C-alpha cells in the first residue's frame, strides 16, 4: 500500500510536465488542425537549451525558462512561416504530418551534431532532494516541475482568455471563416499559435531535462506519449490535455509500482482504446469545432 501511494504521488507530480507539453500540441491542433509531430523534438531542444545554459553559465533550468521559451517561440513562428504556410489549405492536415515529421528529423539531426548522442541530464544541486511528508517522499525536483507546469498552464490560460490575441485564437478555433470576416488575420494567428506551442515545449523541456536523462533520439518516445495524451483528452482541448496527462502518468506509475514496468505502457493504451471506443472524440473533445 505504501509503495502504491508513493507511486501515485510520483505519477501526479510528473503529470504536470506532460500536461504542459501536451497543451502546446493540442493548442496547435486547435488553431491549425495540424498534428505537430515535431512537438517532442521541440521539447528535447528546449531541454538541451536549458542544459547548455546551466552547464555553461550556471543558470538554473527553472530560471532560464523565460530565455528558452522566447527562443523557441521565435523558432516555432519560423517553422510555421517557412514550412507550414506554403501548404495549400485543403491539403494542410495531411501534408503537415509529413512536414512536421521532417522538422522533427531536422531538429534531431541538428541536436545530434551539436550535442552528440551521449545521454545528458541536468543535475542541479537539488536534483536528489526530497521532503518527507507522512512517511512519503515528495521529490523536490518533481514538485518544482509540477508547480512550474501549473504556473505555465495558468499563464497560457490567461493568455487565451484575457488577451486580445487569446480571443483571436479562440475565435479562429471556433469558426475560422467568421473570425476572418471580423478582421482576425488567420495566418498571423497560426504563426503566433505555433510559436506559442513551441514555447510551451521549451518550458516543458527545461523541466523534462531535470527529471529524465535525454538525447536527441528521446523525442520518438515523447511524441508517442504526447499524441496519446492529446487523443485521450480530446484533440484541441487544453483541459483535456491536463486530464489526459494525469491519467497517463498515474496509471503508468501505479502499474509500474504494483505490477511491472513492462505492463505500464500497455495499461495506458488499454485505457486509451476503451475511451476511444466509448467516446471517439476523447474525454473532452467535441465533434464540432469548439473551445480550447
Amino acid at each position, binding site marked *: 500500500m505504501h509503495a502504491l501511494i508513493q507511486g501515485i504521488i510520483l505519477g501526479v507530480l510528473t503529470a504536470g510536465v506532460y500536461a504542459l507539453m501536451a497543451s502546446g500540441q493540442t493548442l496547435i491542433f486547435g488553431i491549425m488542425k495540424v498534428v505537430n509531430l515535431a512537438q517532442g523534438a521541440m521539447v528535447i531542444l528546449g531541454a538541451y537549451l536549458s542544459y547548455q545554459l546551466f552547464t555553461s553559465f550556471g543558470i538554473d533550468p527553472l530560471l532560464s525558462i523565460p530565455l528558452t521559451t522566447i527562443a523557441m517561440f521565435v523558432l516555432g513562428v519560423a517553422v510555421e512561416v517557412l514550412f507550414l504556410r506554403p501548404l495549400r489549405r485543403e491539403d494542410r492536415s495531411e501534408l503537415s504530418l509529413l512536414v512536421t515529421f521532417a522538422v522533427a528529423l531536422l531538429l534531431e539531426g541538428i541536436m545530434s551534431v551539436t550535442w552528440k548522442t551521449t545521454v545528458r541530464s541536468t543535475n542541479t544541486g537539488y536534483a*536528489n532532494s*526530497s521532503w518527507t511528508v507522512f512517511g512519503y517522499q515528495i521529490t523536490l525536483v518533481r514538485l518544482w516541475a509540477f508547480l512550474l507546469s501549473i504556473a505555465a498552464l495558468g499563464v497560457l490560460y490567461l493568455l487565451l482568455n484575457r488577451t486580445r490575441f487569446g480571443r483571436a485564437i479562440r475565435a479562429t478555433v471556433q469558426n475560422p471563416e467568421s473570425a476572418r470576416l471580423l478582421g482576425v488575420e488567420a495566418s498571423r494567428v497560426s504563426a503566433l499559435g505555433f510559436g506559442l506551442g513551441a514555447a510551451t515545449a521549451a518550458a516543458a523541456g527545461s523541466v523534462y531535462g531535470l*527529471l529524465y536523462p535525454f538525447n536527441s533520439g528521446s523525442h520518438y518516445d515523447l511524441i508517442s506519449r504526447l499524441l496519446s495524451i492529446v487523443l485521450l483528452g480530446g484533440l484541441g482541448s487544453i483541459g483535456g490535455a491536463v486530464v489526459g496527462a494525469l491519467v497517463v502518468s498515474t496509471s503508468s*506509475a501505479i502499474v509500474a509500482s504494483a505490477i511491472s514496468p*513492462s505492463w505500464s505502457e500497455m495499461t495506458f493504451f488499454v485505457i486509451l482504446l476503451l475511451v476511444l471506443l466509448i467516446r471517439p472524440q476523447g474525454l473532452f473533445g467535441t465533434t464540432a469545432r469548439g473551445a480550447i
Partner: protein
Amino acid sequence: MKLSRTSRTHLEEKGVTVVHYRNRLQRGATATTAAAAAVLLIAGCASKASNSGGGTAPSGGGSKAPLVIGASVSLTGDFSDSGKGVQRGYQLWADTVNAKGGILGRKVTVKIVDDASSPTQVVTNYQNLINKDHVDLTFGPFSTLLTIPASQVAKRYGYAFLAPAGGGPDVFKQNLTNFFFVQPAPTTQSGDVFASYILSLPAADRPKTAAYAELDDPFSAPIAENIRSKFEAAGIQTVYKQVYPSETQDLSPVMAAIAAKMPDVIVGGTQSEDAYAQVKSLVQLKYSPKFMFQSNGANSPLEYPNKVGAANTAGIMSSADWYPGSKASGSDAFTAAYIAKYGGTAQTVDDNSAEAYAAGQLVEAVAAKTGKLDNATIISSLHAGSWPTVLGDLAWGANGAPTGEYNLVQWQGGKLLPVYPATVAQASPVYPKPNWGG
C-alpha cells in the same frame, strides 16, 4: 572506465579474434599437414639466418617477415565507439611489442578492417583476411553478435580466435575449441564475485533479504539472476524482483516498491542510464540498503560520480576486469603507453582497449613459452594452464569460456577500488554501505 562493463549495451560486448599470420614457412606447409607445418615452423624459428630473406618471404633486407595479425573491428555503425577502443588496444599492443623488437624477432603488423557493425560484413572480412591477405593470426571483432559468425570462419581455417569482446552465452554454446574469450569470466557471470564476497562474510554480517531490479537485456538481467540463485541457495530471502524493459523512462515506481520492502541488499542488473536512475531514485526515496551492487554503470569511474553525485557513490559495488591502478601483469606499462599515445588519464583508459591489449599479450606469452607462433600451438597452449595479462591470469574451459572471476570493486572516498578477492584488493570492503551523501 575500464571495468568490465562488458555489457554497456548488449551489442557492445567485445569479441576479438586473433589469427596467426601465416609466415612463408607455414604457407608451404598448410597444403600438406598440420604436423608438417609445425615442423617447418620449428625449423624456421630455430634457424633465423637461413630463414630471413629466403623462400616466400615478402620482406628482404635480412630481417624476418612481419607477423601480420588481421582483425575486423566496428569502426562505423552501432558498435563504433567500443570498436575504436578495441582498435586502440590492438594497435597499442603492436607498438609496445615492436618497441621491444617484436615477437621471436618478427615485427608485428595489425591489419584492421571495418565491418560497420554488420554480422555479414564481418564474415567477408575474415574470409578476406585469411584467404586473400594471408594473415598469420586473427583477433576478434566487437560484440557477441559479430563474434559468433567470425569465430566460425576462424574455426573453418584452423585459426585460433582470441575474442576480447564477445562473451555472451551463445558464443560458448558453439563449443569451438579454437575460441578464447579474453576476459576473466563469461559476461553473464561477471557479478558472481559479489555473491562470493557476500557468502564469505560471517553469518551474522550477511544480508537476510535481497531485492533485484534487472534491465531486460541479455547481458544485464542474467548477471543479477546468477547472483540471485547463489543468494537463494544460501538462504538469503528474495523480497522483491522486477525486470524492466529498456525503454522504461522512469524507474522511480520500481525503486519505491523496493524501498517499501526495506531489503538488506539491492542487486541491480544494470547497463548505464538505468544504473544512475536507480541510485537517484533511492536517494530521493531516502532508502539506503546495507549492500548495493550494480553490474554495470557503477564501474564507470568518470561517468558514475557525475551522474549520481560523487557523495552518493560511497559503498556501491560493481565488478571489473581491468581498472586504473591494477597490478596485473603489464598493466602499468599498458596504462603508461595508453596515456602517452592517446592522452587522458588512467581514469579515461578504455577497458575495451585493455581487453584487446590482453589478446596480444597472450600471443606474446605463448611465443615466449613455446618459441612458436602458429595457430595450432596457440590453441593447444592456451587450453593448458593459466596465462598472465593486464586483466589478471586467464584460463579457459574446452569451449573457450574463461574459468576465473571478475574483481569486486567498490566506491570509497570518491574512488573505485578493488576490494575482493584479497589477492587483488587495494582496500578492505566497507559495509554496511554508508548512507546517501557519504
